């Protein structure tokens, strides 16, 4: 390989590389000559990753996704996505002789005949539940720490799309076995589609290939569930991770951490071992959940029939807030000119994406209000941005209130409450509680900021009580080490936007647009007096520590 052919022109550029030391190097050289792996590895093999428990949330998403793909492929080997009718005579005796679709029969087969099939089914379902939950919490960590700020807004959008696709793919998967619960979910979807003005009935007919339920919906959902959505998700996921690599991970502020560096340990070996190991930990835990906790025991529900229903029809948790919306909405129906506008279903159908888009759009709204064009790689402590933290908490509250609405019957029977009361509570609560939580959270953050300031200026409480000569008891405070002082004071405190003065330099009245005014107002809300506690200054600190204190 390395010896170059002598002089025959035109000479191709020859490799001048030294002989590889061993087979491994030789193989790497071979690949490098074709794929350029050395240049790739140079930037990445010892890439530095900062360490914090909350940075593992994204990893959980990734690993559960891999688990879902692995187990999902296995399930496709046995599952028959067909609504063709068969009479069951498998080993699950209670359903012997019952008519059902092939989809349901093959799901029973996977659960009872295929050895380990039940385990794989349960791992698949548990992993899906954990996947969406992990995405949710991961998104919240990105939100509350401000990790979505420039340059990561687009990656936030990729992540958000993954979350939405995760919702839908989960819903479709739930629909495939064609048991009584999943059929009820599909019926729900049909009703929702029908509520769309103008085109609802057309979409319904095209989706189902005719009237509900028809025989097309499960094969169609199957393709979407196993091919279309996972394919798109895989693409987005790869893009998401490439961007995480490219941007380099954010880090918490602290001694030695700046906006211009990233402090942590190298990918190889520490992160390879930790992250690789973490995959197995996640997989192991989900396998254990699937060994001990049954999820979606479809055999207990029976095959789907449009005239039958199981009383505790409940979607997976992440659809719960949509369920809540649809349950607590008053049944408004507008009938005029020979048409019906089913607001009772259509409004929830529109609110569902709206609630999600609200959070998706947040980075852009905040960016606009603050008008900050710089890159941010140091994470915000949630307390240091009280308005954002309050808004995030309000959003979670809305979500949870609606989730409660989605389980209103369970809650009613469990806590012996009246269904009406819960419904009214949710109706009022979805407006009032987020607002209340916003204010509480914001004040709480301000309180924490005050406490930080206190700590910086007066030191940390040591828990040691001391009696002063004149008899008073006080707690001994210890000055914080410089590292801690730095951590507590290094964050920026943006100032609210100034409105341009009413008149320009020539004394001519200037027109300030409504948008600019709104922006200034919002900015005042974020960073004005009520929005943050001015952090201690060096002078304040010096004054107190040098004894010219304020008492």
């Amino acid at each position, binding site marked *: 390989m390395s010896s170059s052919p002598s002089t025959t022109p035109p000479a191709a550029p020859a490799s001048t590389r030294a002989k590889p030391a061993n087979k491994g190097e030789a193989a790497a050289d071979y690949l490098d000559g074709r794929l350029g792996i050395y240049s790739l590895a140079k930037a990445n093999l010892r*890439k*530095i990753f900062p360490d914090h428990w909350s940075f593992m949330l994204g990893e959980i998403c990734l690993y559960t996704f891999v688990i879902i793909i692995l187990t999902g492929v296995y399930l496709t080997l046995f599952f028959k996505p067909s609504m063709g*009718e068969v009479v069951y005579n498998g080993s699950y005796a209670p359903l012997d002789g019952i*008519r059902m679709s092939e989809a349901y029969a093959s799901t029973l087969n996977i659960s009872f005949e295929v*050895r380990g099939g*039940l*385990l794989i089914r349960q791992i698949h379902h548990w992993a899906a539940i954990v996947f969406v939950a992990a995405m949710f919490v991961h998104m919240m960590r990105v939100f509350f720490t401000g990790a979505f700020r420039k340059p990561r807004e687009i990656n936030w959008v990729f992540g958000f799309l993954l979350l939405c696709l995760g919702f839908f793919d989960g819903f479709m998967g739930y629909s495939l076995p064609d048991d009584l619960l999943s059929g009820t979910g599909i*019926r729900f979807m049909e*009703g929702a589609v*029908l*509520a*769309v003005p103008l085109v*609802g009935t*057309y979409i319904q*007919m095209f*989706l189902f*290939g005719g*009237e*509900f339920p028809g025989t097309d919906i499960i094969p169609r959902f199957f393709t979407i569930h196993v091919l279309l959505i996972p394919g798109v998700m895989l693409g987005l996921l790869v893009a998401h991770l490439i961007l995480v690599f490219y941007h*380099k991970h954010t880090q918490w502020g602290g001694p030695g951490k700046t906006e211009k*560096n990233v*402090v942590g*340990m190298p990918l190889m*070996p*520490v992160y390879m*071992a930790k992250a690789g190991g*973490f995959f*197995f930990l996640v997989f192991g835990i989900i*396998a*254990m959940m699937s*060994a*001990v906790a049954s999820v979606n025991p479809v055999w207990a529900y029976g095959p789907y029939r*449009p*005239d*039958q*229903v199981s*009383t*505790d*029809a409940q979607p997976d948790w992440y659809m719960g807030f949509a369920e809540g919306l649809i*349950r607590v909405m008053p*049944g408004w129906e507008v*009938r005029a000119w*020979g*048409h*019906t506008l089913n607001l*009772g*279903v259509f409004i929830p159908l529109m609110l569902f994406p709206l609630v999600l888009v609200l959070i998706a759009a947040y980075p852009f709204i905040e960016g606009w209000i603050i008008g900050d064009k710089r*890159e941010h790689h140091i994470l915000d402590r949630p307390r240091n941005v009280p308005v954002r933290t309050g808004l995030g908490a309000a959003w979670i509250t809305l979500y949870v209130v609606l989730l409660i609405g989605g389980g209103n019957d369970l809650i009613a029977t469990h806590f012996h409450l009246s269904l009406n009361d819960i419904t009214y509570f949710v109706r009022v609560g979805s407006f009032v509680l987020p607002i209340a939580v916003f204010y509480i959270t914001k004040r709480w953050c301000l309180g924490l900021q005050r406490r930080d300031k206190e700590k910086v200026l007066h030191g940390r409480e040591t828990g040691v009580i001391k009696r*002063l000569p004149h008899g*008073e008891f006080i707690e001994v*405070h*210890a000055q914080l080490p*410089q590292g801690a002082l*730095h951590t507590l004071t*290094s964050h920026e405190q943006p100032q609210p936007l100034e409105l341009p003065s009413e008149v320009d330099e020539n004394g001519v009245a200037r027109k300030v647009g409504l948008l600019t005014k709104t922006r200034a107002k919002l900015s005042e809300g974020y960073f004005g007096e009520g929005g943050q506690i001015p952090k201690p200054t*060096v002078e304040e*600190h010096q004054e*107190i*520590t040098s*004894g010219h204190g304020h008492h």
Partner: protein
Amino acid sequence: MSHDNISDDKLPEAHAASEGHGLPAVADDPFADPGLPAHEPRRTDIDERAAKRAERQVSLMFVTSMLATVGFIASYVAIKPDKLVYIFPLGHVSALNFALGMTLAVALFCIGAGAVHWARTLMSDVEMPAERHPIEADDEVRADVIQQFKTGAAESGFGRRKMIRNTMIGSMAMVPLAGVVLLRDLGPLPEKKLDHTGWIEATPAAPIRLVNMNTDEPMKAEDIAVGSLTFAKPGPSASRPNGLQDSDEDFQQAIAKDALMLIRIQPEDLKDEKSKNLGFEGVLAYSKICTHVGCPISLYEQQTHHALCPCHQSTFDLSDGARVIFGPAGHPLPQLKITTDTEGYLVATQDFTVPVGPSFWERSA
């Protein structure tokens, strides 16, 4: 940490007395970044015996994983799929599922635990900084790229040759229509399909009997007890000589619209005159399909005559024309007009007068 090294001069009250004792850090900027803290060695970094112990622990976990995989294979071979075992506190569970799940869990978890333990005890935990570079390119690169783009654009003549540009945009805009057209055969047009049910075949001349869903028998008015809830489907008709049967190819589709629930209410308790007239001697036949999003209604409370949909708890007062009294449903359950035939069996002589199930844009009633 201990009491002794907290000197008096850190007491808030004692500041005045502590003049001159300035803390070292206060020198000029007490908040300045002191830089990365020095690396603190771990036990395993300095004690070879501790490192050896960690090494054995990691290997032990890997070995445990191997044993668990062997256990997994053994369970797969040895345990019958239908065997149940009692396991506290889970109750009776599938032995195979439990054994496979647990062995797999251990096999996977131990690999993970081993790798993480290895990383935490034996691999270097020295934190180091790497530089970040701004994402955006510098002005020179930016200007260069824009120039290149302009050159490319100029060479294409895209801006100058308007005819090419416009026809190209036109063709690109049109070609997706082929894909849209292809979707047409996904399903039929709605037409009036949702307006009618299988009961449409019923006429006064050829009535269709109401057949009990469970027994497949026609029913007389006296078969419907006050307070009971009976489910019914269409009996024999011209197109279905045996009535609607679950072996019919389109059974699911038909039952999704034709399903009925029969109740009997003392005629004097009926609050709605129109509804009373659609029934027969207090026997009323309502659509079983909830008008909210289409779940079948399954619960009936005989004292109040309320029917409840289990999906989102819409509640209908069946003594009052199935008026919605609670929940998200937007209109009453449709009622089928019934009477009896010459043999005294309950029959329908016409379809529902309004579409059953969830409402939709074209619904005019």
